[in-house]
Protein backbone atom coordinates (compact mmCIF):
# COMPACT_ATOMS: atom_id res chain seq x y z
CA UNK A 1 0.00 0.00 0.00
CA UNK A 2 1.51 3.32 -1.08
CA UNK A 3 1.64 6.20 1.38
CA UNK A 4 -1.00 8.84 0.72
CA UNK A 5 -0.08 11.64 -1.67
CA UNK A 6 1.06 14.61 0.33
CA UNK A 7 1.29 18.13 -0.92
CA UNK A 8 3.00 21.14 0.60
CA UNK A 9 -0.45 22.56 1.37
CA UNK A 10 -1.52 19.39 3.20
CA UNK A 11 1.73 19.32 5.11
CA UNK A 12 1.29 22.97 5.98
CA UNK A 13 -2.09 22.18 7.48
CA UNK A 14 -0.63 19.16 9.25
CA UNK A 15 2.05 21.38 10.78
CA UNK A 16 -0.57 23.95 11.79
CA UNK A 17 -2.36 21.21 13.73
CA UNK A 18 0.60 19.19 14.95
CA UNK A 19 2.66 21.98 16.52
CA UNK A 20 -0.19 23.51 18.57
CA UNK A 21 -1.21 19.95 19.54
CA UNK A 22 2.37 19.33 20.65
CA UNK A 23 2.25 22.52 22.74
CA UNK A 24 -1.11 21.57 24.23
CA UNK A 25 0.20 18.15 25.24
CA UNK A 26 3.26 19.75 26.82
CA UNK A 27 0.96 22.02 28.80
CA UNK A 28 -1.43 19.38 30.05
CA UNK A 29 0.72 16.29 30.57
CA UNK A 30 2.35 15.96 33.98
CA UNK A 31 6.06 16.77 34.08
CA UNK A 32 8.23 13.68 34.28
CA UNK A 33 5.37 11.34 33.38
CA UNK A 34 5.76 8.47 30.93
CA UNK A 35 3.21 10.03 28.59
CA UNK A 36 5.22 13.26 28.53
CA UNK A 37 8.32 11.25 27.72
CA UNK A 38 6.53 9.48 24.84
CA UNK A 39 5.26 12.75 23.36
CA UNK A 40 8.60 14.50 23.79
CA UNK A 41 10.56 11.63 22.23
CA UNK A 42 8.18 10.48 19.48
CA UNK A 43 7.15 13.83 18.04
CA UNK A 44 10.65 14.54 16.68
CA UNK A 45 10.79 11.03 15.23
CA UNK A 46 7.48 11.62 13.46
CA UNK A 47 8.40 15.07 12.18
CA UNK A 48 11.89 14.03 11.07
CA UNK A 49 10.44 10.96 9.31
CA UNK A 50 8.01 13.23 7.46
CA UNK A 51 10.92 15.50 6.49
CA UNK A 52 12.95 12.51 5.24
CA UNK A 53 10.08 11.25 3.09
CA UNK A 54 9.45 14.70 1.59
CA UNK A 55 13.18 15.23 0.95
CA UNK A 56 13.33 11.86 -0.80
CA UNK A 57 10.44 12.91 -3.05
CA UNK A 58 12.22 16.17 -3.86
CA UNK A 59 15.50 14.37 -4.56
CA UNK A 60 13.71 11.95 -6.92
CA UNK A 61 12.04 14.77 -8.81
CA UNK A 62 15.38 15.94 -10.26
CA UNK A 63 16.48 13.93 -13.30
CA UNK A 64 20.04 15.10 -13.91
CA UNK A 65 22.52 14.80 -11.04
CA UNK A 66 23.70 18.40 -10.84
CA UNK A 67 24.60 20.71 -7.94
CA UNK A 68 20.96 21.20 -7.07
CA UNK A 69 20.22 17.49 -6.82
CA UNK A 70 23.47 17.03 -4.88
CA UNK A 71 22.52 19.66 -2.29
CA UNK A 72 19.05 18.16 -1.78
CA UNK A 73 20.64 14.71 -1.49
CA UNK A 74 23.05 15.97 1.18
CA UNK A 75 20.18 17.55 3.11
CA UNK A 76 18.27 14.26 2.84
CA UNK A 77 21.25 12.27 4.19
CA UNK A 78 21.69 14.75 7.06
CA UNK A 79 18.00 14.56 7.92
CA UNK A 80 18.06 10.74 7.85
CA UNK A 81 20.94 10.86 10.34
CA UNK A 82 18.93 13.29 12.48
CA UNK A 83 15.97 10.91 12.33
CA UNK A 84 18.22 8.03 13.45
CA UNK A 85 19.48 10.24 16.28
CA UNK A 86 15.94 11.03 17.42
CA UNK A 87 15.02 7.34 17.26
CA UNK A 88 18.12 6.31 19.16
CA UNK A 89 17.44 8.94 21.83
CA UNK A 90 13.88 7.68 22.26
CA UNK A 91 15.02 4.05 22.42
CA UNK A 92 17.70 4.80 25.02
CA UNK A 93 15.37 6.84 27.20
CA UNK A 94 12.16 4.84 26.98
CA UNK A 95 13.29 1.24 26.41
CA UNK A 96 16.80 1.16 27.79
CA UNK A 97 15.69 3.38 30.72
CA UNK A 98 18.79 5.55 30.50
CA UNK A 99 18.59 8.89 32.24
CA UNK A 100 19.46 11.11 29.26
CA UNK A 101 20.00 14.15 31.47
CA UNK A 102 22.84 12.28 33.23
CA UNK A 103 24.24 10.47 30.21
CA UNK A 104 25.77 12.88 27.74
CA UNK A 105 26.94 12.23 25.09
CA UNK A 106 25.21 9.06 23.89
CA UNK A 107 24.99 7.16 20.60
CA UNK A 108 22.24 9.59 19.58
CA UNK A 109 24.78 12.43 19.70
CA UNK A 110 27.07 10.50 17.34
CA UNK A 111 24.26 10.48 14.76
CA UNK A 112 23.47 14.17 15.38
CA UNK A 113 27.09 15.20 15.01
CA UNK A 114 27.50 13.20 11.81
CA UNK A 115 24.35 14.79 10.41
CA UNK A 116 26.04 18.20 10.38
CA UNK A 117 28.54 17.36 7.65
CA UNK A 118 25.99 16.61 4.91
CA UNK A 119 23.62 19.35 6.13
CA UNK A 120 26.29 22.04 6.23
CA UNK A 121 27.72 20.84 2.90
CA UNK A 122 24.26 20.88 1.30
CA UNK A 123 23.59 24.45 2.39
CA UNK A 124 27.01 25.70 1.29
CA UNK A 125 26.63 23.97 -2.10
CA UNK A 126 23.35 25.88 -2.54
CA UNK A 127 25.01 29.15 -1.58
CA UNK A 128 28.05 28.53 -3.78
CA UNK A 129 25.86 27.54 -6.75
CA UNK A 130 23.87 30.76 -6.36
CA UNK A 131 27.03 32.86 -6.13
CA UNK A 132 28.34 31.26 -9.33
CA UNK A 133 25.04 31.81 -11.14
CA UNK A 134 25.61 35.50 -11.79
CA UNK A 135 22.26 36.37 -10.27
CA UNK A 136 22.16 39.50 -8.08
CA UNK A 137 23.43 39.12 -4.53
CA UNK A 138 21.46 42.11 -3.30
CA UNK A 139 22.74 44.98 -1.19
CA UNK A 140 26.38 44.29 -0.31
CA UNK A 141 26.16 46.63 2.69
CA UNK A 142 23.66 44.23 4.25
CA UNK A 143 26.28 41.48 4.15
CA UNK A 144 28.48 43.65 6.34
CA UNK A 145 25.53 44.05 8.70
CA UNK A 146 25.05 40.26 8.74
CA UNK A 147 28.76 39.82 9.45
CA UNK A 148 28.53 42.28 12.36
CA UNK A 149 25.44 40.57 13.78
CA UNK A 150 27.06 37.15 13.43
CA UNK A 151 30.14 38.41 15.22
CA UNK A 152 27.97 39.57 18.09
CA UNK A 153 26.12 36.24 18.20
CA UNK A 154 29.38 34.28 18.03
CA UNK A 155 30.86 36.43 20.80
CA UNK A 156 27.82 35.81 23.00
CA UNK A 157 27.96 32.08 22.33
CA UNK A 158 31.67 32.03 23.21
CA UNK A 159 31.29 34.22 26.32
CA UNK A 160 28.12 32.75 27.78
CA UNK A 161 28.35 29.15 26.68
CA UNK A 162 31.69 27.94 25.40
CA UNK A 163 33.96 29.54 28.00
CA UNK A 164 31.80 28.56 31.01
CA UNK A 165 31.56 25.00 29.67
CA UNK A 166 35.33 24.81 29.23
CA UNK A 167 35.88 26.13 32.76
CA UNK A 168 33.37 23.77 34.37
CA UNK A 169 35.33 21.10 36.29
CA UNK A 170 32.22 18.96 36.77
CA UNK A 171 31.75 18.42 33.03
CA UNK A 172 33.80 15.58 31.54
CA UNK A 173 36.15 16.22 28.63
CA UNK A 174 34.06 14.19 26.19
CA UNK A 175 30.91 16.06 27.24
CA UNK A 176 32.75 19.37 26.79
CA UNK A 177 33.75 18.39 23.25
CA UNK A 178 30.14 17.64 22.33
CA UNK A 179 28.79 20.76 24.11
CA UNK A 180 31.25 22.85 22.09
CA UNK A 181 30.69 20.99 18.84
CA UNK A 182 26.96 21.70 18.55
CA UNK A 183 26.94 25.52 18.68
CA UNK A 184 30.00 25.76 16.44
CA UNK A 185 28.50 23.39 13.86
CA UNK A 186 25.19 25.24 14.08
CA UNK A 187 26.91 28.51 13.23
CA UNK A 188 28.35 26.91 10.07
CA UNK A 189 24.81 25.83 9.22
CA UNK A 190 23.03 29.07 10.01
CA UNK A 191 25.40 31.35 8.07
CA UNK A 192 24.44 30.04 4.60
CA UNK A 193 20.83 29.68 5.81
CA UNK A 194 20.59 33.37 6.70
CA UNK A 195 22.35 34.47 3.50
CA UNK A 196 20.02 32.31 1.40
CA UNK A 197 17.06 33.66 3.35
CA UNK A 198 18.10 37.20 2.43
CA UNK A 199 18.67 36.21 -1.19
CA UNK A 200 15.22 34.58 -1.42
CA UNK A 201 13.69 37.76 0.00
CA UNK A 202 14.92 39.52 -3.15
CA UNK A 203 12.62 37.26 -5.15
CA UNK A 204 9.55 38.59 -3.38
CA UNK A 205 6.63 36.18 -3.70
CA UNK A 206 8.00 34.57 -6.87
CA UNK A 207 7.54 30.82 -7.05
CA UNK A 208 11.25 29.98 -7.23
CA UNK A 209 11.92 31.39 -3.80
CA UNK A 210 9.45 29.29 -1.82
CA UNK A 211 11.42 26.02 -1.41
CA UNK A 212 14.60 27.74 -0.24
CA UNK A 213 12.65 30.08 1.99
CA UNK A 214 11.04 27.20 3.90
CA UNK A 215 14.35 25.33 3.96
CA UNK A 216 16.19 28.24 5.55
CA UNK A 217 13.35 28.82 8.04
CA UNK A 218 13.59 25.15 9.02
CA UNK A 219 17.33 25.30 9.63
CA UNK A 220 17.11 28.58 11.53
CA UNK A 221 14.43 27.08 13.84
CA UNK A 222 16.66 24.07 14.47
CA UNK A 223 19.79 26.15 15.05
CA UNK A 224 18.01 28.37 17.57
CA UNK A 225 16.65 25.25 19.29
CA UNK A 226 20.14 23.72 19.41
CA UNK A 227 21.64 26.83 20.98
CA UNK A 228 18.89 27.08 23.61
CA UNK A 229 19.24 23.34 24.30
CA UNK A 230 23.01 23.63 24.77
CA UNK A 231 22.57 26.30 27.43
CA UNK A 232 19.68 24.55 29.17
CA UNK A 233 21.19 21.07 29.12
CA UNK A 234 24.55 22.18 30.45
CA UNK A 235 22.74 23.90 33.32
CA UNK A 236 20.55 20.80 33.87
CA UNK A 237 17.49 22.83 33.02
CA UNK A 238 16.38 20.77 30.00
CA UNK A 239 13.87 17.97 30.47
CA UNK A 240 11.11 16.24 28.52
CA UNK A 241 8.35 18.62 27.55
CA UNK A 242 10.63 21.63 27.20
CA UNK A 243 9.19 24.14 24.72
CA UNK A 244 12.48 24.08 22.80
CA UNK A 245 11.25 20.79 21.32
CA UNK A 246 8.57 22.71 19.42
CA UNK A 247 11.26 24.53 17.45
CA UNK A 248 12.90 21.28 16.36
CA UNK A 249 9.58 19.78 15.34
CA UNK A 250 8.57 22.93 13.48
CA UNK A 251 12.01 22.96 11.86
CA UNK A 252 11.62 19.42 10.53
CA UNK A 253 8.16 20.18 9.17
CA UNK A 254 9.37 23.39 7.50
CA UNK A 255 12.11 21.35 5.80
CA UNK A 256 9.46 18.86 4.68
CA UNK A 257 7.33 21.66 3.25
CA UNK A 258 10.41 23.06 1.47
CA UNK A 259 11.06 19.68 -0.12
CA UNK A 260 7.47 19.27 -1.29
CA UNK A 261 7.47 22.81 -2.68
CA UNK A 262 10.61 21.94 -4.63
CA UNK A 263 9.04 18.76 -6.00
CA UNK A 264 5.85 20.61 -6.95
CA UNK A 265 7.85 23.39 -8.59
CA UNK A 266 9.69 20.93 -10.84
CA UNK A 267 6.52 19.00 -11.64
CA UNK A 268 4.73 22.21 -12.63
CA UNK A 269 7.11 22.47 -15.59
CA UNK A 270 6.39 18.96 -16.78
CA UNK A 271 2.78 19.74 -17.57
Amino acid at each position, binding site marked *: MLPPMITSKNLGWTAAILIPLNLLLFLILPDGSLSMRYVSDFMPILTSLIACYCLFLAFKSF*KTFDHTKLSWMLILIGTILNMLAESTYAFLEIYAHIDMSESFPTLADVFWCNAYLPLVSGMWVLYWAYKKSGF*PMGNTKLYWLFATLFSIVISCVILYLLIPVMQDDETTLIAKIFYLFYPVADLFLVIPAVILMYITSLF*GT*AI*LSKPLRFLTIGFIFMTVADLIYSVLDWQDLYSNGNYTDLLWNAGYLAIGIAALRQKELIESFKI
Partner: protein
Amino acid sequence: MRQYKNPLAQKIHEIMLPLVGEFMAGGVLKTQSKNIGISEDDIKPEHIPSLAEAIKKGLTLFLGSDVANKVCDQIKMIK
Protein backbone atom coordinates in the same frame (compact mmCIF):
# COMPACT_ATOMS: atom_id res chain seq x y z
CA MET B 1 5.20 45.26 -14.49
CA ARG B 2 8.32 46.97 -15.70
CA GLN B 3 8.18 48.16 -19.30
CA TYR B 4 11.17 48.01 -21.61
CA LYS B 5 11.57 49.96 -24.82
CA ASN B 6 13.26 46.93 -26.33
CA PRO B 7 10.58 44.29 -27.20
CA LEU B 8 13.07 41.41 -26.82
CA ALA B 9 14.00 42.60 -23.32
CA GLN B 10 10.29 42.90 -22.53
CA LYS B 11 9.61 39.31 -23.65
CA ILE B 12 12.52 37.93 -21.60
CA HIS B 13 11.29 39.90 -18.62
CA GLU B 14 7.77 38.47 -19.03
CA ILE B 15 9.09 34.90 -19.09
CA MET B 16 11.16 35.44 -15.97
CA LEU B 17 8.67 37.52 -14.00
CA PRO B 18 6.50 34.72 -12.52
CA LEU B 19 9.61 32.68 -11.74
CA VAL B 20 11.88 35.19 -10.02
CA GLY B 21 9.72 38.25 -9.32
CA GLU B 22 9.92 41.82 -10.54
CA PHE B 23 13.11 42.88 -8.77
CA MET B 24 15.12 39.80 -9.73
CA ALA B 25 13.83 39.69 -13.31
CA GLY B 26 15.00 43.25 -13.85
CA GLY B 27 18.24 42.64 -11.97
CA VAL B 28 19.09 39.47 -13.86
CA LEU B 29 18.38 40.99 -17.27
CA LYS B 30 20.49 44.02 -16.42
CA THR B 31 23.40 41.96 -15.06
CA GLN B 32 23.44 39.37 -17.81
CA SER B 33 23.13 42.02 -20.54
CA LYS B 34 26.03 43.89 -18.96
CA ASN B 35 28.07 40.68 -18.87
CA ILE B 36 27.84 40.42 -22.66
CA GLY B 37 28.67 44.09 -23.05
CA ILE B 38 25.27 45.55 -23.84
CA SER B 39 22.37 47.25 -22.07
CA GLU B 40 18.82 45.88 -21.95
CA ASP B 41 17.75 48.40 -24.57
CA ASP B 42 20.35 47.07 -27.02
CA ILE B 43 19.32 43.41 -26.96
CA LYS B 44 19.18 41.97 -30.48
CA PRO B 45 18.15 38.49 -31.71
CA GLU B 46 21.81 37.40 -31.90
CA HIS B 47 22.19 38.10 -28.16
CA ILE B 48 19.29 35.88 -27.14
CA PRO B 49 21.15 32.49 -27.06
CA SER B 50 23.95 33.76 -24.78
CA LEU B 51 21.48 35.58 -22.53
CA ALA B 52 19.34 32.44 -22.32
CA GLU B 53 22.34 30.30 -21.37
CA ALA B 54 23.44 32.81 -18.72
CA ILE B 55 19.95 32.96 -17.22
CA LYS B 56 19.76 29.16 -17.29
CA LYS B 57 22.81 28.95 -15.00
CA GLY B 58 20.99 30.88 -12.30
CA LEU B 59 17.71 29.05 -12.69
CA THR B 60 19.45 25.65 -12.41
CA LEU B 61 19.95 26.17 -8.67
CA PHE B 62 16.21 26.46 -8.14
CA LEU B 63 14.86 24.16 -10.84
CA GLY B 64 17.59 21.67 -11.65
CA SER B 65 19.25 21.41 -15.08
CA ASP B 66 16.36 19.74 -16.92
CA VAL B 67 13.71 22.32 -16.09
CA ALA B 68 16.16 25.24 -16.38
CA ASN B 69 16.86 23.98 -19.92
CA LYS B 70 13.15 24.22 -20.75
CA VAL B 71 13.03 27.84 -19.61
CA CYS B 72 16.24 28.50 -21.56
CA ASP B 73 14.64 27.00 -24.69
CA GLN B 74 11.61 29.20 -24.15
CA ILE B 75 13.82 32.29 -24.07
CA LYS B 76 15.75 31.14 -27.14
CA MET B 77 12.48 30.96 -29.10
CA ILE B 78 11.91 34.70 -28.64
CA LYS B 79 12.00 36.63 -31.94
